[in-house]
């Protein structure tokens, strides 16, 4: 299976995602430069963390206009699995591929620490190997991860079960003290209505090897491998959406 890792000027977690895909999980991986329009037959796309285009204006606002985003959008519309991590999540929001927007963290501090995440939905290609209610310990590193959606949009997102992960305490209980950035409804990850596009603020690629302090991020990668290679228990395998 081939991972395509999109690289914008200012991306800085691209090598981590590439390393996880290739060295930890033994898959093919290709970098996709933001000025290119060729997805190099990738089966799954990752928009990695960083500060694309310096995050000028708003996080992700400029990246949305990069030439690669046309093919990324078409790939997503064909049902191909797309994962936005941190800045990649912010880009998917600005591009309108996911609902909502990011605000500065409550407290205005850049937060770099491990958080606890409760898996809310397992019928996405990036969480299907997890159990509903499972608690994952994965690091974050961001200044603008305060997820926001207007009341009506939030209602729709919740009704459609589009909240994939929530910040919780280590036991999986909602507790505002364990919400690191003030996200509404403690939302850490959302998916689109079709469920093939997922954005998450935590960094699973930084939690795939014991040396890095934890391996809970592996389940995100294992899920998409399972989704692409077998039917699994939650539905048919996703259509391979490479070009």
């Amino acid at each position, binding site marked *: 299976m081939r991972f395509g890792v999109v690289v914008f000027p200012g991306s800085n977690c691209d090598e981590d995602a590439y390393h996880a895909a290739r060295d930890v999980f033994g898959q093919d991986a290709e970098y996709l430069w933001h000025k290119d329009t060729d997805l190099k037959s990738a089966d799954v796309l990752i928009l990695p963390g960083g500060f694309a285009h310096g995050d000028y204006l708003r996080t992700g606002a400029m990246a949305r206009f990069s030439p690669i985003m046309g093919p990324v959008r078409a790939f997503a519309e064909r049902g191909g699995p797309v994962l936005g991590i941190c800045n990649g999540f912010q880009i998917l929001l600005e591009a309108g591929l996911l609902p909502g927007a990011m605000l500065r963290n409550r407290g205005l501090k850049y937060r770099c620490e491990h958080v606890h995440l409760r898996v809310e939905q397992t019928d996405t290609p990036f969480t299907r190997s997890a159990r509903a209610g499972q608690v994952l310990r994965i690091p974050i590193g961001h200044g603008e991860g305060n997820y*926001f959606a207007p009341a009506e949009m939030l209602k729709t997102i919740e009704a459609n079960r589009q909240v994939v992960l929530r910040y919780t305490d280590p036991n999986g209980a909602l507790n505002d003290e364990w919400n690191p950035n003030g996200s509404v409804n403690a939302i850490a990850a959302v998916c689109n209505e079709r469920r093939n596009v997922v954005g998450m603020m935590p960094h699973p690629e930084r939690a795939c090897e014991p040396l890095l302090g934890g391996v809970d991020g592996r389940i995100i990668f294992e899920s998409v491998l399972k989704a692409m290679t077998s039917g699994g228990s939650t539905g048919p395998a996703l259509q391979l959406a490479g070009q």
Partner: protein
Amino acid sequence: MRARVFVTLKPSVFDPQGRTIAEALHSLGYKNVEDVRQGKYFELDLATTEAATARALAAEVADKVLANPVIESYRIEVE
């Protein structure tokens, strides 16, 4: 013509930077400053002499790029 675009968070959206500035002003003794909302300001130099054209163009780029309609609104002045 020149268009000035003021982008601010919508009233319903919490502005942590504005709140922090307001608290700093209170600690400096400016008790009459009741609230602060922080925003962004853009000056656009436009190749047109028509005010209506300038306003329409500024609105278009504000909608498309300068503001995120999920969280922000904007106001335009032309001269």
